């Protein structure tokens, strides 16, 4: 483990840029922490924290100048690997019929700064989704293979966090190039750095650092323990697959359906939701057309439409599909739960539907 000063993080960003990475990190925008391109440490949300609850998100000022003192915001890294809108190809009419040209592929080399453990797990999950054994998604995999990941261990947990339940955090255990733990005390602000890959070590060789002291390591440990013991939510995962499979007719779904607006927010903020649609856009001449892939949601009515019918018209069925997929059928599909416990779906639900609470409601309904 190495210890670097707060300002050395700026050097890391600089070095990654020098190496040709498009560096992405958290920034404050529109009253939220979002992920976008950053060029220096000043772009990070210094001194900002957040408060989150079901259906509630507010930024608040911290008094310690922390750079990573907040929980997961509305965006996740999936928007870089699996963009919300992506041109797949275009086609032009010609004398023979038409000709299709694949979209002029730009595959940026990204460095992600500040990836939380839950988010890292979300990337692992999407790795399986977009490499399903039969097919692999070109864009995702081309981007994925070149990412530099600087993880950040959580020192605090949000009110809607439950990564401990999902065994996805708060400590980043693998899959990062470097992992940072931010420590702030009365007169120091530094990072304990763990190198996860040769790529990470190569970077760290360029950065002024000291071997971490026992005290510094203990402080990093304490920070993680603090996050671990302050999870805002818990979700009982024991036997959850059969619980949901067996309870498709539970009245809890009717209760949820009374509140759910089927707005699809939960699926948009979820870092693992992967559904997409394609749109064909044609210009006015009718000679040129483009195919775009866009994020879609199982909450949209058209999602399960077929010629002459629709398999899921009720909101109840659509919510049940989402939650059962996320927590149960995902396990059958990919050998892993689709939920990482980041809590985004709880925070960003306009009516505050809480996935952890609904699971416990189903469990409770069986006891009565």
């Amino acid at each position, binding site marked *: 483990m190495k210890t670097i000063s707060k300002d050395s993080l700026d050097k890391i960003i600089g070095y990654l840029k020098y190496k040709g990475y498009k560096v992405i990190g958290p920034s404050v925008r529109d009253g939220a922490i979002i992920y976008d391109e950053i060029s220096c440490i000043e772009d990070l949300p210094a001194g900002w924290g957040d408060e989150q609850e079901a259906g509630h998100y507010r930024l608040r000022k911290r008094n310690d100048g922390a750079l990573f003192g907040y929980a997961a915001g509305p965006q996740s890294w999936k928007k870089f690997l699996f963009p919300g809108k992506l041109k797949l190809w275009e086609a032009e009419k010609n004398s023979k019929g038409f000709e299709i040209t694949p979209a002029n592929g730009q595959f940026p080399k990204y460095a992600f700064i500040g990836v939380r453990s839950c988010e890292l797990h979300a990337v692992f999950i999407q790795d399986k989704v977009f490499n399903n054994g039969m*097919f692999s998604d070109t864009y995702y995999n081309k981007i994925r293979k070149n990412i530099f990941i600087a993880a950040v261990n959580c020192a605090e947990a949000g009110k809607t966090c439950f990564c401990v339940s999902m065994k996805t955090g708060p400590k980043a255990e693998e899959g990062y190039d470097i992992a940072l733990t931010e420590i702030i005390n009365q007169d120091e602000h530094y990072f304990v750095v763990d190198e996860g890959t040769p790529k990470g070590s190569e970077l760290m060789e360029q950065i002024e650092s000291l071997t971490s002291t026992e005290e510094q390591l203990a402080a990093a440990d304490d920070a993680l323990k603090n996050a671990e013991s302050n999870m805002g939510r818990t979700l009982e995962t024991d036997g959850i697959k059969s619980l949901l499979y067996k309870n498709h007719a539970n009245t809890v779904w009717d209760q949820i359906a009374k509140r759910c607006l089927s707005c699809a927010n939960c699926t948009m903020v979820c870092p693992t939701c992967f559904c*997409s*649609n394609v749109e064909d856009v044609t210009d006015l001449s009718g000679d040129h057309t483009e195919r775009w892939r866009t994020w879609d949601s199982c909450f949209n009515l058209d999602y399960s439409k077929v010629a002459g019918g629709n398999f899921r018209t009720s909101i109840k069925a659509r919510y049940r599909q989402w939650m059962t997929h996320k927590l149960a059928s995902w396990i059958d599909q990919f050998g892993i739960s689709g939920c990482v416990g980041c809590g985004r779906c709880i925070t960003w639900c306009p009516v505050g539907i809480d996935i952890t609470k609904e699971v416990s409601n189903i469990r409770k309904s069986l006891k009565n």
Partner: protein
Amino acid sequence: MIPRQVRVKKIFWETEDVFTLELVSEDYPMSEFYFRPGQFNMLYAFGVGEAAISISSDSAKKNSILHSIHKVGYVTNALSKLKKGDVIGIRGPFGKAWPLEEIKGYDICIMAGGIGLAPLRPSIYYILKHRKQYGKFTLLYGARSPRDMLYPVELEQWAKKHDIHIETIVDRADSMWRGQVGVVTELIDYAELDPERTRSMVCGPEIMMKYSIDELKKNGLNEDQIYLSLERNMKCALGFCGHCQYGPSFVCKEGPVFNFSKVKDIFEIREL
């Protein structure tokens, strides 16, 4: 995955709202379009979009492929307006095929409803071509009305020239209809199934498949002796877009053909 271009060699109407496209390729060897009975292609109409359409030709026929298409949505409507020589896009073939190898040696009972005969036609060709490798062969086919019956000439020829017992029935007759009237499930009585020796392939609207499977079970078939082809909203056909999920399955890659025992637990769940 990017569509390849194929040319319409022929377009003809099977019924009032079902038409067949015969497709050939100049840019790619036709071997690139080889398929197994039961698989589907994504057909692309320029500027309009794609639709998942099962392949309905003889898989041994090497120079073109046929798709029988029900004109029901934007894409199929656009496809219906094609003319000889027009070009469309195609991706595929995708999906699991009918288990024609596994069911060799058994009596075969095919139950088809409406457009559901189209994805089964390649299997019929196959079985007739390898007739000795199968036992008794029965085809039970139900359609909405005499005019909605697919491939009537072919049905007649099969019955006449081949060792196949065919029963057809319509929901509604007109005054010209001299055949059977009623629902397809009633035909099982005439199939004289030997339940242990029989394997069944079922395709049609899901409600028709539900009643057909119930009836097959009543006649002594086990769930694992029945195969069905499910329809869901196939968009990408690669298992990425999520639309065709049915319980834990992606119908585009784990289906559309399923052994019924694999889906029996979820088959009755509403709006799954």
